[in-house]
């Protein structure tokens, strides 16, 4: 057996994190990791090193414009975009994990290993060109996440969240498999491009539509869109904070990318109008339900979970519009979402809110102690709400503009109204941080606890804040360098 250089370069973005993930459990075998700090440091360094290696390799591919493939694995612009996206999110999560796991007193190398495996699965999921790889990618990204949700075993809720995520996720994966099998049966091909063409036919086979519906269900579950969203708040609350952030950003992002790849082939044809209208209904329900439920939350993590549901709604609106400009708008939005949501979850670790102490009451007045972090998270929150000159605004703007150009004015109006509502709950965090006074009991408890040191999580949060501002100041550059190129080079079939 031999491989050409091109084939090797197609699988290297998967191999580099996988190598680290395979080596990390060996380092964790020893019980030194609980006592010796440099062993723990070495493990975290190794994880970051692998992520950085993968990141630089993919960015080099991106810069040269090469789009290698190995069999059905297409490391094209979509795959490379997914690689960059996921590895940045994972690196931010690893930085936060160092502080979070030390705060919880449960530092394990296996956690990092599972995180890296999940990264491999995500890149595979977004670059899969046939049903087998797509399903394997789905499993490889979710199986480590089931374990990661329950990884901090000291917390009573960890296993509960893990169990819920596992059961719902396994059922969704089974439905996804059944759907892809039906698609395979109708088209006699495992290739996504062939299947996309069959679905785009003027009168697709009903059995193919049933299969497409089941596959759609699997995707919507991973994107956490209504009505497949119930797991989201529970799982995000149970998981360690950085893992919740990573799940909300990376899982949703790659699910959208893989979905775009599947959908892309059939978009211009009239047959996919049915899928388009189904998406429109789901997007509307997601926007309305996510935003309304977020209003009522007292726990920051649950609020962020419902906020991530509502952002799934905005992203789906972009897919409903379905034009190249809308697709690149979605891709820009994902980058913005990466920065702002990792920042939003990052504040929990940076302020040292361990375990279940993640309610708004717990952060009252903390903004004055660390003004830099509080300002960074305020920027992230404003960006999530879509306030102008920040990154989130431009993402929403591009999507809404395309919706209106395509004649879906009412949907755009609902979207704008939803983001107006969201300003209320996003501003609750800055208000609690800066304007509200902590209760005496909370102050006494805070005085008893040792001072919080979270330098790496703080740095990650500041990076997110800077990214949000930078993308808001130079949206055109980011749009041209990343979002537009994916659509130009990878979606030949879009109108």
């Amino acid at each position: 057996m031999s491989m050409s250089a091109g084939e090797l370069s197609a699988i290297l973005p998967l191999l580099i994190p996988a190598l680290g993930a395979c080596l990390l459990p060996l380092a964790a075998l020893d019980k030194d990791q609980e006592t010796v700090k440099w062993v723990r440091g070495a493990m975290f360094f190794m994880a970051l090193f692998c992520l950085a290696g993968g990141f630089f390799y993919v960015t080099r591919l991106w810069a040269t414009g090469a789009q290698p493939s190995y069999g059905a694995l297409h490391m094209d612009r979509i795959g490379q975009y997914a690689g960059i996206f996921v590895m940045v999110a994972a690196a931010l999560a690893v930085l936060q994990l160092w502080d979070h796991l030390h705060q919880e007193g449960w530092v394990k190398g296996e956690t990092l290993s599972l995180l890296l495996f999940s990264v491999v699965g995500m890149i595979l999921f977004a670059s899969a060109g046939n049903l087998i790889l797509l399903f394997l990618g789905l499993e490889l990204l979710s199986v480590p996440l089931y374990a990661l949700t329950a990884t901090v075993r000291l917390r009573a809720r960890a296993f509960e969240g893990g169990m819920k995520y596992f059961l719902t996720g396994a059922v969704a994966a089974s439905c996804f498999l059944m759907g892809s099998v039906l698609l395979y049966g109708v088209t006699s091909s495992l290739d996504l491009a062939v299947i996309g063409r069959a679905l785009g036919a003027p009168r697709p086979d009903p059995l193919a539509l049933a299969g497409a519906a089941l596959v759609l269900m699997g995707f919507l579950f991973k994107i956490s869109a209504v009505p497949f969203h119930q797991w989201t708040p529970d799982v995000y609350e149970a998981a360690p904070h950085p893992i919740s952030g990573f799940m909300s950003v990376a899982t949703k992002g790659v699910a959208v990318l893989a979905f775009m790849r599947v959908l892309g082939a059939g978009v211009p044809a009239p047959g996919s109008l049915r899928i388009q209208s189904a998406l429109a209904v789901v997007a509307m329900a997601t926007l309305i339900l996510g935003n309304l439920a977020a209003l009522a939350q007292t726990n920051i993590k649950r609020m962020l979970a419902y906020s991530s549901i509502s952002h799934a709604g905005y992203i789906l609106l972009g897919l409903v519009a379905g034009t190249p400009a809308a697709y690149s708008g979605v891709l820009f939005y994902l980058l913005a979402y990466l920065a702002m949501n990792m920042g939003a979850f990052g504040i929990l670790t940076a302020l040292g809110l361990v375990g279940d102490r993640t309610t708004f009451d717990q952060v009252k007045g903390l903004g004055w102690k660390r003004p830099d972090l509080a300002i960074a998270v305020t920027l992230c929150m404003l960006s999530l709400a879509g306030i102008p000159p920040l990154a989130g605004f431009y993402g929403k703007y591009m999507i809404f503009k395309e919706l209106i150009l395509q004649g879906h004015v009412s949907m755009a109006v609902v979207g704008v109204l939803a983001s107006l509502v969201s300003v209320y709950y996003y501003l609750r965090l800055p208000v609690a941080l800066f304007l509200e006074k902590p209760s005496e009991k909370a102050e006494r408890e805070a005085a008893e606890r040792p001072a919080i040191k979270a330098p790496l999580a703080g740095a990650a949060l500041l990076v997110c804040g800077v990214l949000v501002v930078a993308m808001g100041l130079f949206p055109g550059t980011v749009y041209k360098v990343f979002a537009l190129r994916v659509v130009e080079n990878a979606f030949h079939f879009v109108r």
Partner: protein
Amino acid sequence: MVSMNVVLFISFLLFSVGVAGVLIRRNALVILMCVELMLNAANLNLVAFARHSGTVGGQAFALLVMGLAAAEVAIGLALVVALYRKKDTIQVDQIDLLKG
């Protein structure tokens, strides 16, 4: 000679029983077995479609799905055992700390 209708019908029945079991049972172990039933229903279809198309892809996929099922079971059973140690129950309706 096996007719395709029969295969699809049986596989669909298995899948429905699996879905129903997941929705109505409280015992996490039984739910896990029902998920396996759903995977097997998909596998039956895969083998039939592989014969229909005369390609080997479907059978290879079916074999991979079996391996995946084993991986899923390993994680699921580990979660069940861990949950049992922590909470003394494996009934999904009795784990209700997360709400809101």
